[in-house]
């Protein structure tokens, strides 16, 4: 293709994307279809990948394909393995894309589709993709070192500790909040609870198959598992229809929470081959399948978006979670736009498997673009249901009450048409007693997905099957995150305690395993239980806390990368990480401040404490209520402390880094990089 044609093609693509974005932003008359979003996102991603990531590769990082990567130099066939770039991209994408990009946009849809969509696209292109890509590059140059090790070596010793504490905190809050999502999706839902319960023996069967009968035959076992899981989804309908069985699997939220806590403890102590690994294989498969199916569904069904571009809740009074667009839209959507957690994957297994430095562009920047696309699709699915139904599902009982009839006046009062009969009919169609107050995003996303899928296959007759398939899919990989996260958390605590008393650091010593697993599970279990008891639904306090923790970890990653860029003498280009860092610090510090000190009791933890204390002091509460209120007061104080400590830690790191930057720029300290020395690659050109 001649140069001119290429230029014209990119120009056309840019214009198409800009046109679609303008259509989304300014269309107020007719309803938009999901296609607009797919086109706007895809064109922006292509242009950003072609130009911005090329600029990052060539100018900012100066990727060097003649330099041997750790995978080549240290090739041991296990940790360090040169891997085809498309395969590695699949690995990396499967690792970074969890429930976050599905749940976050669904919750942020309460502001309308516009703020979330713009943040997903712009945040990813200029922030998230850059972070993932640059951290990956830095780790490749350092034999695949972790973010914590890089923080210690390149910023300061304290930097390493701060990264470790931030990771542990985010892990605990993340696990609590995703467990809460599962609890809200499965409480009083015999069909859903049965299906998810069945995935445990199914995963174990797969585990035995891959361990003893056909070692390592992942695809065979996954195919068997997939068929069995589908059968479990279908069988769930019969279980729910049978009064005796339905009773067994109808679990209250608190019972479900305790069950999940016990399960989490057991699962983290079981050998990985039995439960965790097989379920991980299964969920990775279903995840990629569902993402592709959702894309196809949105293109073929072309669902019309029912939610307005901007809802009345941009003022901060939203029922799903309280707080204005700034800063809360930007911490609610973390995964999908920019997520600090990714920096752990980018400095984990991926850098040890990359064959050439040049591949980091596709693997680091490209995978994150795909995750952002998943987020945009989740936004389309959430906004394609009628707003009345969306708010009925996603608002806690404390705000709209428990029955459609009672909620009707409130939701209609917000200006959204809502007919209680529609809500009853929808619950019946999907095979649930009620869909009211199922906060956490998963159920409303499942309804949105089921409506799109049933528009392609099966119509309304299969709505229940699709809904429960979607719930099973979300719950399946949330449980995987729960197991894997508890395990990693356990290793971190063992490492920490190993400094205090050596035997506690031994990962294979059973008393240490039980103690540290117990500590981690108690950590997230406490926050989970607190969320279940919260009359405002738990998501209102826990999801922002998770968002703050996650974005603060992103700030840690960007501090490390900015320092490295400065040491590399790339002062001219340092804005590529410094600008997203400045934005994230502004957003998270504002959010942390508001969550702690805001005068509205739905936003500020301390204001909530004040209101509850007044209630308690009035002496009108019954003894049981008074005890519950005391617990709520304690929990709100705890949440305030967690938010404050996280923010303070990152400020300390930022100050240390700023001091280091000053020393480098003023020439007071020679910049010392801790890169592995250059070695020329021995691979042939095409490898």
């Amino acid at each position, binding site marked *: 293709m001649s140069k001119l044609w290429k230029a014209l093609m990119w120009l056309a693509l840019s214009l198409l994307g800009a046109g679609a974005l303008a259509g989304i932003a300014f269309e107020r008359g007719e309803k938009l279809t999901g296609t607009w979003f797919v086109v706007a996102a895809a064109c922006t991603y292509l242009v950003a990948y072609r130009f911005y990531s090329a600029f990052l590769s060539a100018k900012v990082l100066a990727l060097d394909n003649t330099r041997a990567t750790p995978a080549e130099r240290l090739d041991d066939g*296990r940790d360090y393995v040169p891997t085809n770039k498309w395969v590695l991209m699949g690995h990396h994408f499967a690792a970074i894309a969890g429930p976050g990009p599905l749940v976050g946009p669904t919750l942020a849809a309460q502001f309308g589709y516009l703020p979330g969509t713009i943040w997903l696209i712009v945040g990813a292109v200029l922030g998230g993709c850059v972070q993932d890509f640059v951290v990956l590059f830095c780790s490749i140059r350092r034999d695949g070192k972790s973010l914590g090790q890089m923080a210690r070596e390149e910023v300061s010793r304290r930097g390493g500790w701060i990264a470790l504490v931030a990771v542990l905190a985010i892990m605990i809050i993340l696990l609590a909040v995703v467990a809460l999502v599962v609890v809200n999706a499965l409480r009083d839902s015999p069909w859903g609870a049965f299906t998810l319960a069945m995935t445990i023996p199914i995963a174990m069967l797969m585990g035995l198959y891959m361990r003893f009968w056909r070692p390592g035959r992942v695809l065979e076992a996954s195919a068997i598992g997939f068929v069995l899981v589908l059968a479990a989804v279908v069988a769930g309908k019969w279980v729910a229809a049978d009064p005796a069985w339905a009773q067994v699997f109808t679990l209250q939220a608190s019972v479900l929470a305790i069950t999940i806590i016990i399960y989490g403890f057991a699962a983290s102590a079981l050998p990985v081959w039995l439960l965790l690994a097989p379920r991980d294989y299964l969920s990775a498969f279903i995840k990629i399948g569902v993402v592709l199916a959702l894309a196809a569904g949105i293109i073929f069904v072309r669902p019309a978006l029912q939610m307005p571009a901007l809802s009345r809740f941009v003022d901060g009074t939203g029922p799903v979670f309280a707080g204005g667009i700034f800063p809360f839209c930007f911490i609610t959507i973390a995964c999908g736009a920019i997520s600090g957690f990714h920096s752990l994957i980018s400095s984990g297994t991926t850098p040890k498997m990359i064959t050439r430095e040049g591949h980091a562009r596709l693997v680091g920047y490209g995978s994150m673009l795909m995750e952002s696309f998943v987020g945009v699709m989740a936004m389309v699915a959430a906004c394609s249901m009628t707003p009345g139904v969306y708010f009925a599902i996603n608002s806690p009982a404390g705000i709209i009450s428990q029955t459609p009839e009672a909620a009707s006046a409130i939701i209609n009062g917000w200006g959204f048409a809502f007919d209680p009969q529609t809500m009853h009919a929808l619950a019946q169609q999907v095979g649930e007693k009620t869909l009211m107050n199922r906060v956490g995003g998963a159920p409303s996303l499942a309804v949105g997905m089921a409506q799109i899928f049933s528009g392609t296959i099966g119509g309304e007759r299969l709505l229940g099957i699709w809904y429960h398939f979607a719930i099973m899919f979300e719950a399946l990989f949330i449980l995987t995150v729960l197991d894997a996260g508890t395990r990693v958390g356990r290793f971190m605590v063992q490492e920490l305690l190993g400094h205090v008393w050596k035997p506690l650091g031994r990962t294979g010593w059973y008393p240490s395993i039980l103690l540290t697993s117990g500590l981690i599970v108690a950590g997230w279990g406490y926050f989970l239980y607190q969320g279940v008891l919260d009359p405002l639904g738990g998501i209102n306090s826990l999801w922002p806390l998770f968002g703050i923790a996650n974005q603060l970890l992103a700030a840690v990653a960007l501090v490390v990368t900015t320092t490295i860029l400065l040491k590399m003498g790339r002062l001219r280009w340092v804005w590529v990480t410094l600008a997203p860092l400045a934005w994230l610090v502004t957003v998270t510090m504002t959010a942390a401040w508001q969550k702690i000190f805001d005068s509205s009791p739905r936003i500020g933890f301390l204001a909530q404490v004040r209101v509850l204390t007044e209630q308690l002091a009035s002496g009108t509460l019954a003894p049981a209520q008074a005890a519950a209120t005391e617990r709520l007061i304690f929990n709100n104080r705890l949440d305030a402390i967690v938010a404050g400590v996280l923010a303070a830690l990152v400020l300390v790191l930022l100050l240390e880094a700023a001091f280091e930057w000053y020393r480098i720029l003023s020439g007071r300290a020679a910049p010392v990089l801790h890169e592995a020395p250059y070695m020329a690659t021995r691979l042939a050109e095409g490898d």
Partner: protein
Amino acid sequence: MNFKFEISNLKLLWWWVRQMSGDAAYERYLESHHHVSRRGRGAQGPKPILTRQEFYLDTLKRRYSGVSRCC
């Protein structure tokens, strides 16, 4: 676009799925082991080759000792 082209595309997709899922990990390990031991690994000499089952368990142990899944 002819039939042969389609087949080679399908083969490529199947290859990608096997690599991606970890189904082909053991074959890759054998290849790489062959590679590594041919190059020689210092004084330790070539490491013993793991069986398919040993390799599978070893892979899992390594994978789940670090952050393997994200939010």
